[in-house]
């Protein structure tokens, strides 16, 4: 290969600082979006399993809108088109008034997008709890809220821990799309380094290793959680 390796470039000033700050922004965007995605997604997912037609309808429309348009396109629409739909003063405030407009736009976009996916997971979790349990709970005289609180949700959430972990890792990785609206997160910073130094392979290797490292930590934690809360009687990971 016709390439001059230069690993030390990664720890020279200012590039090392860029990587650290990029990782910081990645974690900031991912965690802030996850708060939106988890709560909004759970709410929408639960709405989609209720018997109330209006709630059901709202939930369905939400999921269909947000998951059927590519995230990259949504990012663009939130950043460049959404402010134009507002009254002029509000639009200008979104564009210039708020501190860190690109950060908050990315968080809202990523959060609302992932919420549609979390909603599907939550719904799948709840519906895979056998219908008999719902009837049994009702027969015991539990109110709808109690049926969810004490029966469906505790079981449903446990079942979807593996795919929910995937969603969390997904939000973390998708946060790299924030670079398209100018958030200088990890991927953006490594691209910066490649443009400045033309040492692309070193920069991308760093990004790859850091992504793997962070997700490895998350997965290890989630596997411990999954084991601790496993329900006896379900086919489980290390059965037999």
């Amino acid at each position: 290969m016709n390439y001059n390796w230069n690993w030390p470039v990664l720890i020279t000033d200012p590039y090392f600082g860029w990587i650290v700050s990029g990782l910081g922004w990645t974690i900031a965007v991912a965690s802030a979006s996850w708060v939106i995605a988890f709560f909004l997604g759970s709410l929408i997912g639960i709405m989609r399993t209720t018997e109330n037609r209006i709630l059901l309808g709202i939930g369905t429309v939400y999921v269909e809108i947000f998951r059927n348009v590519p995230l990259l396109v949504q990012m663009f629409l939130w950043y460049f088109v959404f402010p134009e739909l507002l009254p002029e003063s509000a639009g200008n405030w979104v564009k210039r008034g708020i501190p860190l407009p690109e950060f908050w736009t990315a968080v809202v976009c990523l959060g609302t997008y992932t919420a549609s996916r979390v909603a599907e997971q939550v719904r799948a979790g709840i519906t895979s709890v056998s219908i008999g349990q719902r009837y049994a709970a009702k027969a015991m005289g539990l109110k709808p809220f109690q049926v969810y609180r004490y029966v469906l949700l505790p079981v449903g959430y446990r079942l979807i821990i593996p795919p929910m972990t995937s969603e969390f890792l997904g939000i973390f990785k998708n946060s790299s799309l924030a670079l398209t609206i100018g958030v200088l997160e990890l991927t953006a910073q490594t691209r910066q380094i490649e443009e400045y130094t033309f040492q692309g392979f070193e920069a991308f290797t760093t990004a790859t290793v850091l992504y793997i490292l962070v997700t490895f930590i998350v997965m290890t934690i989630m596997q411990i959680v999954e084991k601790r809360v496993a329900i006896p009687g379900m086919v489980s990971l290390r059965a037999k």
Partner: protein
Amino acid sequence: MKKILGLAAGVLALVAVNSAGAGEVDNSPVLKRIAERGVINMGHRESSVPFAFIGDDGKPQGYSVDLCFKIIDEIKKVTNKPDLKINFVPVTSQTRIALMANGTIDLECGSTTNNLTRQKQVDYLPVTFITGTKLASKKGSGINEIEDLDGKVIALSLGTTNEKAIKRVAKEKGLNIKYVMVKDHPQGWLALSSGRADAYASDHVLLFGLISKSKNPGDFQVTGRFLSYDPYGIMVPQNDSIYRRLGTVVLADLMRSGEINKIYNKWFNPGPSNINMPVSDTLGVAFEIQALPH
């Protein structure tokens, strides 16, 4: 006898020419692989108007692309492969170096600035275009020089030489400028035209290109002095002086004969998008200086 001698000399000369050609090809790793595969992999940008962009027929075209075709014609002659196939490989600013380093592309035709840092990884052919960082702003905004941006917002494309230039000047002059980072030139333009930023900084040729393609070209202006010097060149792989010299010869010939001016005018004066940029004095001088004799 004379006839036979003449024939023999002719044959000898022919052999000599051929073997020189073959030797040249054999000693150049890039020419050798092109000859063996019967294919040249031409890297090109896709929306860098008017240097290299996808035309309505889906094929790359532009000023840099035309120059590359001239070089490929010469490669056909040297490798003795008149039917050499051209394989177009689209590249971005992120992939161009990696693709050149791992041998996927044999030359890159786009709008790449030749600078000394980058020469650690790739080689360049002679400079074929000269530009530099300038500002685009709305007419009547009162922004003429970078100093006018104190306390205002400027959009910058991530990782460009323009970003470096603006930040350096702002620091030197102690200007308080707010930056909005964007992914590429059209988004920078959108940031300016939608009022997210008061100005957008880029290579002045690209700014003229963006204005000529915008909906209201009359509303915008390109202003100020040059804040950086950006000479563009065609990139070739490193460690192959025979191959690089071939490209240099082709471009020097075009510059000496003046043919490069014709190609230039086709794309810039006025050019398909009406960009209207005659050869600048600096570029004219650059053409003259680089027109080395044989």
